[in-house]
């Protein structure tokens, strides 16, 4: 078995999960402002729901939210490691990519906190700055992991010798079944 799957990876995942449990638990104790997750729109009440109009409704949970999303990012990147073979530079590439991913999420939270107080209203590529960071940054950066999958499949995921072992196992099972039928 690949060494990382038997050692630190599951422990890190467990700590991330415990952290997320704490975040979720705290949300039940922190009082939510009225309309914190949407209220009836004054003109289109039957169909559209709105939050506040520019005031900071997240002031009590923004940094908790940052913690929540960073725990998620860590959980995702470390989970990806579970599916790889621990050979070559996998860990290094994942750490760099993970840090970049986390930094993008951090930039989003900071930009949004400015936006909520009336700033950062400039439109970038069709959307307000924080939304653009969300769509193009948080949405775009993880594509790097798919690129790794395509380019490094034979090295990090399924080596030809591993596939040969599987083929031998399949052949052996077929022979056993044939003998069993005879």
């Amino acid at each position, binding site marked *: 078995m*690949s060494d990382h799957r038997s050692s630190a990876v599951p422990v890190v995942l467990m700590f991330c999960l415990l952290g997320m449990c704490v975040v979720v638990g705290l949300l039940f104790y922190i009082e939510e402002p009225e309309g914190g997750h949407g209220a009836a729109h004054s003109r289109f009440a039957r169909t559209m729901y709105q939050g506040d109009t520019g005031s900071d409704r997240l002031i009590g949970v923004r940094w908790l939210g940052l913690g929540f999303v960073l725990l998620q990012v860590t959980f995702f990147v470390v989970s990806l490691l579970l599916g790889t073979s621990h050979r070559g530079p996998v860990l290094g590439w994942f750490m760099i990519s993970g840090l970049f991913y986390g930094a993008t999420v951090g930039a989003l939270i900071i930009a949004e906190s400015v936006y*909520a107080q009336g700033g950062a209203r400039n439109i970038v590529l069709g959307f307000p700055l924080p939304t653009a960071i969300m769509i193009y940054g948080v949405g775009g950066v993880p*594509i790097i*992991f798919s690129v790794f999958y395509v380019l490094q499949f034979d090295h990090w995921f399924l080596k030809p010798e*591993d596939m040969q072992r599987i083929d031998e196992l399949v052949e052996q099972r077929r022979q056993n079944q044939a003998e069993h039928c005879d």
Partner: protein
Amino acid sequence: MEEYRQEIVVACVLFYMFACIAVGLWAMRRTKNSGDFFMAGRHLGAFVTSMAVFSSTLSGFGFVGGPELVYKMGMSSIWMVICVTIGYALSFYLLGKRLRLFAEIHEPLSLPDVIAVRYRSQTTRLLASIAILGGVIGYLASQMKAMAVVLKSIVEENTFLMGFIRESSLLQWLLLDSSQTAVTMEATIAVSCAVLVFYCVTGGIIASVYTDVFQGAIMVVAAVLVFLTAANTVDGGFTEMSRTIMADDPEAMGPWGTLGMMGCLSWYFLFALGGAGQPQVITKIMMNRRVRDVRTILPLSLIGYMVSALLWLSIGLAMRTLVLQGRHAELESSGQAATAFLQTYAHPLLAGVVFAGLFAAIMSTADGFLSVGTAAIVRDLPKSILERPLKNELLWARVATVVLAVAASVFALKSGISLIALLGAYGWGIFASTLVPAVAIGLNWKRGTALAASSSIVVALGVNIAVLVSEQYGMRLPWGINGGAIALVGSLTVYMGISFCSTPPVLPDDVDIVMDV
């Protein structure tokens, strides 16, 4: 061409329905045993599997539910879309090769088959089957409702069809409400159910995957065209849409939309990691011909999804802007965002093609759900309770398909969940929270035990049911957090916690080898 808009839409949909019948009958000839019915004989190429994977993920939920949520909540639901880049990576890293290798060696016909091999526990298989049935009902209900909404829109907008219905007192009684001007939801769901049952009973999963190819191709082309149409509907394109919505409510156009930060982040977690627990998607990874094909399937699926998701974003934003600018009357319900846009602003031919694609999306996804649900009923439940499969599995599979479709129709009408997308999110949440620990983590971590897997499924089901029941009584989770996400965090914690506290299990040699790779 504009004056024939409704006729063109109906013609496109009818053409598609006939194509479906043809695919169903063709697939029936190729469906000779339960292996063909559930796993398409495991002969799919990389391109067909890619199309099947991404179109199973998007479906009617994305076509109708996505614009519905953007119209209603602003940017909140875009977290369900952007998570796909990390979500697909997670699904393929954790399951791409692993599931296919299990399929290579053990020839499973369902996900609970894999679970039974991995944990050597019939209890875990039983619980996984029950969880799958719960998720199938919820998700299938969302597909039924989406199909019914579209069907209702098409019929009500067509004067010829409405006139035809009004001429027959029987059709009036069956289809129209008391005002005689609108088709009832019950009627359109019944029609949707009947069409689905015919299609699924005849063709099984083979019909589904080949319709997925058709659907996927339509979705990609139509999404680009709809995106361009939406951008041209509002002068100034997306920049002006952003400005209009921000002028009304900056929060709606901000990254959290109106739902708020914690709600959006809970969706991000649920939809990113939860993809690795969607049986209608991950079982397709077991159907491809060669193990190494997963390397091609990941990028093709991802590109297909990202292009198709343009439809989700563009229609919702355009309709919200048009209503705010007073250029379109306020919608009677947010679920009409997609149909209203297509009926009013899209070129008639494009509208017809998108409606046909929408039916394709719904039917192929529903077929996928019916297939995994049916496998749970006729294969996994008997194997875990009676410890043997049913005789004449293929016949019982077709009977179970009818029963499941009817149950989902009833749930769609009676569950009290009004939004199509939230019905879909409920199904997604059940699958994610019950199957991700046992399957996605369990197939990559040898220390996971059967007790941990069973416990995580029970906890996930318990939390999901508790949230659903409490919402029926008007209770809401704080900060808009999603119940499925809480269930997922809980079930993962339980799974890993119990496994850490247990003696590491001894795995059979063949399982050990697959997990070593």
